[in-house]
């Protein structure tokens, strides 16, 4: 540890003494306005949801282990696929990123807290209720939502049960929560950067989150509009999506995917930020092409608004529109390619070491790129008619969301866990977690490409006999991946309880303000803004 870091430690400890200390017990968490507490709440909530959504995936894979119907009836199977998707998107991935933003953004820009701490408390605490409502609907007569997480009309209007109102309100609350979180991030980054922290000195995680927050503010209200229309169509006799009253069900898909496509970048841009933070640390080099990373992220965000109809190639669009959306979609691979090449160039001739966060990051780069390639295949309009609604699509979005978003969250968690707790995690267990996850996730999702290309449809509880062997393999991979995540829970729990003490700068190649405060990070940091060189 350098003398500079030592000074900072004393500094931080000194300042902490001047503050009131966190309240004890449950009230500390209920009333907290501290960005670190709220970050932890988000992360713990997200991990809980990850396990619940994962349990639903286990039900799905158990049913699909063999052809035929054996464990659950088709209606319940549909509820499982629907709620699994909703929970993983809105309950696991998005809150995890918001949690990381809460913890790290103020530390990275040298701010004492988030800009709007009370709103921060609200934006977290309404979230558990949203998921309580959603999960409770599963136990009500008629069951929970069973129309897929995309809730296409008329499945969600004409053909859904009365519990759909609960789904709608749950989505409303999730949306309000993410919008408040996003507004907080924007205000914090714009107004609370330490003096001298100019835009082009911002750490990339902060940059990617700023852009993500703008995406959230732009599209979450559109999602709220879409669910509101479903609500009034179903209960108040409006006809937004009902042809009998002059509406159009295809319009639902346009509105939904106008939200839905930026949403997929909401779930991956912060991941890009995390990887751009970790790869330079363990390559012991500066990030290659910082400015191009910023511009690439911005252009991905802008392009995400003009590609939505590539989810709808089979709805009968005119050829000109299909070509437009095909080329616009393929255009996104250019800035994404810039990012991937920048990460590889950062590692090139670096003195690389393979700590656990780096392992997850390298796996991310390889496997996310694989998911990107299958995305390119899906973007080809004529080919998409074959792939549409098959397991190929399932394989694609699980590669970008599980080995993409989730792996980056794991990487980030392992990277900053010592900073949060002051303890090093159990490295042996963490490596087991990584290798088991890496192997099982590929056993789980790679064969889905094959069954998808052979024509196995998604969201169906039964399948033709020729898919039996691959599905058995997929299910085994699924169970293995699911169980491996329990190791992560163990590692995190043990790390929170104790372990080898770590210095302020946990990783020797790490750069950034978060490594200048003590480990564990004191309850209050940067009361006086740090100096930016």
């Amino acid at each position, binding site marked *: 540890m350098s003398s500079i870091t030592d000074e900072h430690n004393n500094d931080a400890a000194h300042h902490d003494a001047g503050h009131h200390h966190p309240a004890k017990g449950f009230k500390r968490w209920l009333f907290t306005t501290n960005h670190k507490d709220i970050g932890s709440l988000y992360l713990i909530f997200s991990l809980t949801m990850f396990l619940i959504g994962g349990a639903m995936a286990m039900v799905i894979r158990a049913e699909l282990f063999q052809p035929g119907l054996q464990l659950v009836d088709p209606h319940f199977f549909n509820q499982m696929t629907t709620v699994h998707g909703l929970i993983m998107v809105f309950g696991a991935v998005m809150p995890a990123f918001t949690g990381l933003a809460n913890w790290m953004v103020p530390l990275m820009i040298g701010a004492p807290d988030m800009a709007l701490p009370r709103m921060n408390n609200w934006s977290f605490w309404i979230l558990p209720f949203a998921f309580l409502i959603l999960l409770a609907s599963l136990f009500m007569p008629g069951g929970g939502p069973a129309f897929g997480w995309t809730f296409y009309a008329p499945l969600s209007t004409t053909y859904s049960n009365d519990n759909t109102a609960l789904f709608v309100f749950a989505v409303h609350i999730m949306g309000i929560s993410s919008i408040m979180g996003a*507004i907080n991030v924007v205000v914090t980054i714009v107004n*609370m950067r330490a003096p001298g922290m100019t835009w082009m000195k911002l750490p990339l995680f902060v940059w990617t989150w700023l852009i993500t927050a703008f995406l959230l503010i*732009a599209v979450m209200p*559109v999602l709220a509009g879409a669910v509101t229309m479903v609500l009034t169509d179903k209960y108040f006799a409006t006809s937004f999506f009902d042809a009998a*009253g002059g509406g159009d069900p295809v319009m639902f898909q346009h509105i939904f995917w106008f939200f839905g496509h930026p949403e997929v970048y909401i779930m991956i841009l912060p991941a890009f930020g995390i990887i751009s933070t970790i790869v330079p640390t363990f390559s012991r080099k500066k990030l290659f092409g910082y400015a191009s990373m910023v511009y690439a992220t911005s252009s991905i965000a802008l392009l995400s608004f003009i590609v939505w109809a590539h989810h709808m190639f089979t709805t009968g669009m005119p050829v000109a529109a299909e070509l437009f959306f095909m080329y616009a979609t393929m255009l996104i691979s250019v800035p994404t390619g810039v990012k991937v090449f920048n990460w590889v160039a950062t590692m090139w001739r670096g003195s690389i070491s393979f700590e656990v966060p780096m392992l997850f990051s390298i796996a991310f780069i390889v496997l996310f790129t694989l998911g990107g390639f299958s995305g390119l295949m899906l973007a080809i309009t004529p080919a998409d008619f074959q792939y549409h609604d098959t397991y190929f699509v399932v394989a694609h979005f699980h590669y970008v969301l599980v080995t993409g978003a989730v792996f980056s969250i794991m990487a980030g968690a392992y990277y900053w866990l010592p900073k949060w707790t002051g303890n090093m995690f159990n490295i042996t267990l963490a490596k087991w977690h990584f290798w088991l996850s890496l192997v099982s996730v590929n056993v789980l999702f790679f064969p889905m490409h094959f069954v998808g290309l052979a024509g196995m449809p998604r969201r169906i509880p039964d399948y033709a006999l020729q898919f039996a062997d691959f599905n058995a393999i997929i299910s085994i991979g699924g169970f293995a991946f699911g169980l491996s995540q329990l190791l992560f829970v163990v590692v995190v729990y043990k790390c929170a309880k104790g372990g080898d003490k770590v210095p302020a700068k946990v990783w020797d190649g790490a750069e950034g303000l978060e490594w200048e405060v003590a480990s564990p990070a004191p309850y209050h940091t940067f009361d006086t803004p740090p100096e930016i060189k």
Partner: protein
Amino acid sequence: MTHAPLLKRLVLICIGMFAFAFALVPLYDVFCDITGLNGKPSLEQAQQSNTITDNREVDVSFTTHAQSGAPFEVKSHEYSVVVKPGAMREVLFKAKNLSNQDKVMQAVPSVSPGKAAKYLHKMACFCFDQQPLKAGEEVEFKLLFYVDTELPSDVEELTLSYTVFDISSQFLASN
């Protein structure tokens, strides 16, 4: 530092985007109208055509189907007709209420291929109005239409499809 101005702007963007979601509804119709996408034909009564193209023939077929649960049977007398662009043609449809209750039906037309939708003009159509049918009643409906002389030359046949909806509950609610 005061956060209020930025906060206000961000909240306004949110409200604006929520409104934008609803603005997409009329925008969608306008867009389909201008481009003629989506096979949505006009529900306005058309004017008679002044000219007739004699050296061209277009095949127009009719299909109807009742939305699941709608207790109606609607059928055209002819499966398809051959018309000259600009020439008026009358087609009769037989509609029956299959239930033992008084019902109101609404037929929603759609034209395939979609780009031909704006070239099919209806001067009289049962789809212009909501049609009350007494229990078990059987009536004859008239469709009076012509195909525009401007119909793109690569369209040789088109299909006019009617989806029939049971709107009794909405009808009762609004009366």
